């Protein structure tokens, strides 16, 4: 019976077929319709965004929002986005990638280590650490913005890439997630066995535990990537030089230029630029889908 289950249901809870073991469950139209509504709600604004990135400035304001206008100006818009202000958009894009690689990557590594340490080891002070770190999640970002800014400027770190990267390295939420993943996917027995064999903790970690936690790590990495890619508030305060802006800050700069009495008619450029800014995340999610699916179910296979 379980073999039949495995073949047919890649993504469904195992054992569910036991309700009707001899024939596949009928697909429900009703449920599908419900999900279609959810999907419409989620995708409509994005659909609007994509459609309108093909319009010129005038047709943007004059044509129906949810369908194409006569002219197809996507390539013109793309060209404008990429060449405007000596190609600063490309710079912003590259900056965001750097911030993500270093910031999100670093945060994931640090959170993995810490989650593992807290979940699989016993040492004094664990409770205190836990309480303090989780308590930190409750603090509003604005509370820390000015003090962090002052702290960094006393170290002459403001307006540098480090001023964006370092704050992204500390993710209480990432720590919490990794703590859960570590607890659930690394059996203590395996660690004990490795210790008996004489392996150092570090070796055990890199050769055994990491592999077991892999899906969880990818999940946390994905969340960190989204967080760092969309990071807006702290960079807004820390950075002054356009050359090191991440994408959200760059978009906002153009947004400002499009409003007010000194406005420039670049609304269509902003929309196209917005599309380009969210594409990488979408692609990352689609590509890494396999991993975070497994990551989410790993926690459950263990009884």
């Amino acid at each position, binding site marked *: 019976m379980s073999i039949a289950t495995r073949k047919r249901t890649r993504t469904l809870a195992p054992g569910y077929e036991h309700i009707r073991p001899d024939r596949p469950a009928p697909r429900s139209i009703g449920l599908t319709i419900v999900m279609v509504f959810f999907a419409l709600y989620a995708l409509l*604004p994005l659909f609007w965004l994509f459609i309108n990135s093909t319009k010129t400035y005038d047709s943007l304001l004059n044509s129906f929002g949810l369908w194409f206008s006569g002219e197809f100006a996507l390539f013109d818009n793309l060209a404008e986005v990429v060449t405007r202000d000596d190609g600063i958009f490309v710079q912003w894009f590259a900056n965001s990638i750097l911030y993500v690689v270093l910031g999100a990557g670093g945060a994931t590594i640090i959170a993995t280590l810490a989650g593992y340490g807290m979940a699989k080891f016993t040492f004094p002070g664990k409770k205190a650490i836990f309480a303090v770190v989780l308590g930190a999640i409750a603090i509003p970002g604005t509370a820390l913005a000015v003090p962090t800014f002052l*702290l960094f400027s006393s170290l002459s770190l403001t307006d540098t890439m480090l001023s964006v990267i370092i704050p992204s390295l500390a993710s209480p939420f990432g720590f919490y997630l990794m703590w859960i993943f570590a607890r659930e996917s690394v059996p203590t027995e395996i660690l004990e066995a490795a210790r008996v064999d004489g392996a150092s903790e570090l070796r055990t970690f890199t050769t055994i535990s990491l592999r077991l936690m892999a899906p969880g790590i990818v999940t946390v990495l994905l969340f960190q990537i989204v967080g760092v890619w969309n990071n807006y508030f702290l960079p807004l305060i820390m950075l002054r030089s356009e050359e090191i802006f991440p994408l959200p800050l760059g978009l906002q700069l153009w947004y400002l230029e499009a409003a007010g009495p000194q406005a420039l008619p670049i609304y269509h450029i902003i929309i196209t630029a917005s599309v380009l800014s969210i594409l990488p995340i979408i692609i990352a999610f689609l590509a890494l889908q396999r991993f975070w699916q497994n990551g989410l179910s790993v926690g459950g296979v263990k009884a």
Partner: protein
Amino acid sequence: MSNVATARPSARRVKTRWAGLWFTIPFLAVFTFVLILPLLYALYLSLFQNRLVGGNTFVGLDNFARVFTDPLFWEGLGRVSVFFVIQVPIMLLLSLVAALVLDSVRLRGTSFFRIAIFLPFAVPSVVAALLWGFMYGEQFGLVGNINDAFGTEIAVMTQDWFLAAIGNIATWGALGYNMLILYSSLKSIPPELYEAAALDGASSWRVAWNIKLPYLRGAAVIALIFSVIGSFHLFNEPNLLKTLVPNLVSTYYTPNMYAYNLSFVGQQTNYAATITIVMGIVTAIIAYVVQLRGNKEALQ
């Protein structure tokens, strides 16, 4: 759980392993630098006042006293409380329905729906505010198109509906995220439970009610706590939409906006620090209460 090994023999002696601390130290180092130090500095700031005339002086708890009698603060706090009480249940309910349907074996196209509904989470607030701000427009936006097509006079960006409009943007962005938290919990239900239910001849509705929902409690509490934090810290959406409807969004619309404007426009950094500390405490208390109640029910 964290017990130093004692001389008393017990069934399972837990040995202190300092390696654990070493693994945790990199995180603790950055955490202290980026969160603890600035927090301490914010606390320090809240005890002083830096005036245009008179400079920096120590004022003790005066700033805190001022928060308690500040009508602007209370209005903002009231507003985010209303937001919390209305938007969060709606959003979590929707997330729950979506998660349950997604988990159903009778759904086709599960992978597509899962990624589609999650996508809005990947959109930065600047873009989301831009999108929805435009769509809400009565002249060029979707609302305008609907009005033209159906002869209605819907206006979303008005005093009565603005908070709901913001709630919608928040729901849109977080629905997929919360759905995923709940869904992953559903995916971890042990197959034995389903087997037992099948042996009892349970229908899928009963399975959902008696097995899935109770199992979701833990994840639901987590989702609820994040929503508590999100609603009380509301800032991005009203701040970004302010340019579209300046008279509807005051500088103290939410406590976070109040603190932000006090800091960066009003040069009253000390008072701003005080407000954010108070908000941090309020949020922590509410999150803690939610967690207590949530876990208490789980234990029943």
